[in-house]
C-alpha cells in the first residue's frame, strides 16, 4: 500500500487518475489476501498447539483433580492401587535431555566450525551430506543400536570404570555410583546426544555459512587466528540462530520416545545415580498406554502428556530468558 502511494505521489507527470487508483486498489486487495493467508498459517500453529495442550489437559483432568498438586511431586506409580505421581518421569525427561545437551552442543559446534572454517573444501560436501543423512535415521534404529551395541559396551567398560573411578568423589560421586547394567539415564542421554547432534550441527553449519566472507577476511587481515575469528566474528554474528538450533535439538531430546524407551531401563524409581534405570514422560506413555485398564490410569498418562508440554515450555522459556540476559550484557559492554 505505502509503496504504491509513494510512487504515484513521486511521479511528476501523472497518467489518468482512474487507472492509477484502480491499480492501487487491485494491489491493496491482493496484498490484503496475501496478508490474511499468511496470518492464517501463523495462527494455525497457535491453534494446533493450543488445541493439543487443551485436549491433554481435559483428558488428564481426572488425574489432576484426584491427586491434586501432589501429582507433580509424588514418586508413586502404582497401577494396582491406582496411585500415580509424575515426579520420576519428569525428572528422567529433564535429566536425560540435559545430559544430551551437555554432550551435543560442544560436539555440534565443533563439527560446524570444522566444516565451515577448517576442513579442506573437497571434504565439506560429503561430511555435510553424512550429517543430513544421520538426521533422517528413524529413532527406532537409534534405539536398537543403543540396546544391542551401545548398552553392552556401556555395561562392560564405561559403567564399571565410572563406578570405580568417579563413584568415590565427594560431590559428583553419587551420580556415577551404581551397578554395571549398561542401561540407565546416562546411556539414554548419550544416545539422545547422538540423535540431536545432526540437527544442531546442520543448523549451525548453515548459519556459519551466512557470515559475510569480507568480515572474516578483514579479521584475518588484521592478524586474527582461526580461533579468534570463530569466537569473535562468526559466533557473535550468528548467535541467535545458533541458539535456535540448540532449541530445536533440546525440543527433540525432551520428547524423544522410542530410542529412550529401549535404553532407559523404564523403572519408576527416583535415584541419584545416572547409572541406574529411570523413566521419561514419553517412554512411560509409550509403554503403558495400550494396557492402561482403568480410567484414572489412562487419565494419569494423558496428564503426563500435558506435563510434557509444560516442561518443554518452561525449559524453552528459561533458555530464552538466558538468551535475552546475554544480549543485554553484550549491549552493556
Amino acid at each position, binding site marked *: 500500500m505505502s509503496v504504491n502511494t509513494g510512487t504515484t505521489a513521486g511521479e511528476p507527470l501523472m497518467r489518468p487518475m482512474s487507472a492509477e487508483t484502480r491499480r492501487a486498489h487491485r494491489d491493496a486487495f491482493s496484498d490484503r489476501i496475501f496478508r490474511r493467508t499468511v496470518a492464517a498459517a501463523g495462527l494455525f500453529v497457535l491453534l494446533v498447539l493450543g488445541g*493439543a495442550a487443551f485436549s491433554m489437559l481435559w483428558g488428564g483432568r481426572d488425574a489432576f483433580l484426584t491427586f491434586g498438586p501432589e501429582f507433580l511431586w509424588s514418586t508413586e506409580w502404582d497401577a494396582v492401587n491406582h496411585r500415580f505421581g509424575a515426579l520420576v518421569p519428569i525428572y528422567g525427561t529433564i535429566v536425560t535431555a540435559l545430559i544430551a545437551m551437555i554432550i551435543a552442543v560442544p560436539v555440534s559446534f565443533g563439527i560446524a566450525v570444522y566444516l565451515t572454517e577448517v576442513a579442506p573444501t573437497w571434504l565439506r560436501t560429503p561430511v555435510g551430506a553424512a550429517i543430513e543423512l544421520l538426521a533422517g535415521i528413524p529413532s527406532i534404529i537409534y534405539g536398537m543400536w543403543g540396546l544391542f551395541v551401545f548398552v553392552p559396551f556401556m555395561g562392560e567398560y564405561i559403567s564399571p570404570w565410572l563406578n570405580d573411578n568417579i563413584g568415590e568423589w565427594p560431590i559428583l560421586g553419587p551420580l556415577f555410583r551404581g*551397578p554395571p547394567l549398561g542401561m540407565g539415564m546416562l546411556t539414554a542421554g548419550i544416545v539422545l546426544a547422538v540423535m540431536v547432534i545432526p540437527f544442531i550441527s546442520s543448523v549451525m553449519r548453515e548459519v556459519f555459512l551466512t557470515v559475510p566472507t569480507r568480515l572474516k577476511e578483514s579479521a584475518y587481515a588484521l592478524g586474527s587466528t582461526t580461533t579468534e575469528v570463530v569466537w569473535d566474528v562468526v559466533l557473535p554474528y550468528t548467535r541467535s540462530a545458533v541458539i535456535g538450533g540448540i532449541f530445536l535439538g533440546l525440543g527433540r531430546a525432551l520428547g524423544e520416545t522410542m530410542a529412550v524407551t529401549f535404553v532407559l531401563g523404564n523403572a519408576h524409581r527416583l535415584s541419584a545415580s545416572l547409572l541406574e534405570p529411570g523413566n521419561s514422560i514419553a517412554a512411560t506413555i509409550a509403554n503403558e498406554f495400550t494396557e492402561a485398564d482403568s480410567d484414572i490410569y489412562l487419565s494419569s498418562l494423558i496428564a503426563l502428556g500435558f506435563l510434557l508440554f509444560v516442561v518443554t515450555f518452561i525449559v524453552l522459556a528459561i533458555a530464552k530468558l538466558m538468551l535475552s540476559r546475554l544480549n543485554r550484557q553484550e549491549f552493556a559492554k
Partner: protein
Amino acid sequence: MSISIKLRAVALGLATVFAVGTTQAADITGAGATFVYPILSKWSDTYNKETGNKINYQSIGSGGGIAQIKAGTVDFGSSDKPLPPEELEAAGLAQFPSVIGGVVPVVNIEGVTPGQLKLTGPLIADIFLGKVTKWNDPAIAAINEGLTLPSKTITIVHRSDGSGTTFNWVNYLSKVSPEWREKVGEGTSVQWPYGLGGKGNEGVAAYVKQVKNSIGYVELAYAVQNNMSYAAVKNAAGKFIIPSDETFQAAAAHADWKNAQDFHLIITNAPGEDSWPIAATNFILMYKQPKDATRSRHALDFFKWALENGQQQASELHFVPLPKDLVEQIEAYWAAQIKL
C-alpha cells in the same frame, strides 16, 4: 511425541468404527490382547482361505479390547485377564478361553543351561521383592545341589508395558507369597520394587541376554527362540517342572474349569503332578444378546472352527491347544449363553 500417540489412539478408534460400519456380514472384527495376535492372524488367514470369511483382529492390548467390546464397536474382544461374572453380567457379555500359553522365568548365569536351575514360587517372589539378592544365596543353593552359582548380585528384569504376561506372572507370585500379595499385588502392570523394565517379551528377552546374572520372565516361545536358560519351577504338587507345551496343557487339563462360572479361572499354580505352575489362558469376550446376530454367528463359527481344527497351527506357534473336554464345555456354554 505424546500428541502422536494420542492421534494414533484416535486413529485406531476411528479405524475400528470405520471397519465395522462399512464391512459386509462375513467380515468380523475383534480387538484386544497382543498375546494371541500371532495365532489369531494365522487362524484368520487359513479360515479366510477355507470359507471366504474375514476376521480382522487389532492387537491393541487387553484393556483396549475390553473397552472396545463394551462400547460395542467390535464383534469380539480378547483379554488375558478374565472378567469376573458380575462384570460380565453388567455388560451383558459372555466369556470363554481361546488358547493356552505359559510364562517362564529366564536367567542369564554363566554355565547354567536351560532347565538346569530350579526355583520355587516363594523363592521367585523373594528375588523379585529384593530379599534374595545373590545367586549363591543359601535358599537357592538348598534346592540346587550340584550346581555352583556365582556370588553375584541378581538383576531383575520385568515388563515396562502393561501385559497379560505380567498379569499371569504376578498372579502366580500373589498366590504363593502372601508378602508379594500385600506389598505389590496383581495386575497387568504393577509397581515393581526393583529391576529394569523391558518393552514387550522381546525387550525383556534382550535385557536378560545382555545383563549378566539377571532374571526375567517371558512367554515360552521367546525363551526357545532366543536360546535362553529357563528355570524349572516347583508346582503345587511339589514337583519341579520343566516348561513345555505338554506341561502347559497339563495345567489347563487339571484346572477346575467345571466349577468356574463364565470360565472365570486363572490357571496359575494349577493342581496336578505334571502341571506347569505359571500357565496362562487368553479369553474371548462376546455379547450374549448381540445387536447384529449374523455377525456374532459368524464370529462363533470362526471360534468353533479354531477350537476344533486350528489347534495344530497353535502348537506350531507355541500356543497350547485346549483340552478336549474344555472345548466341549465351551461349546455347551455357547449354546446356553449366547442367544443368536
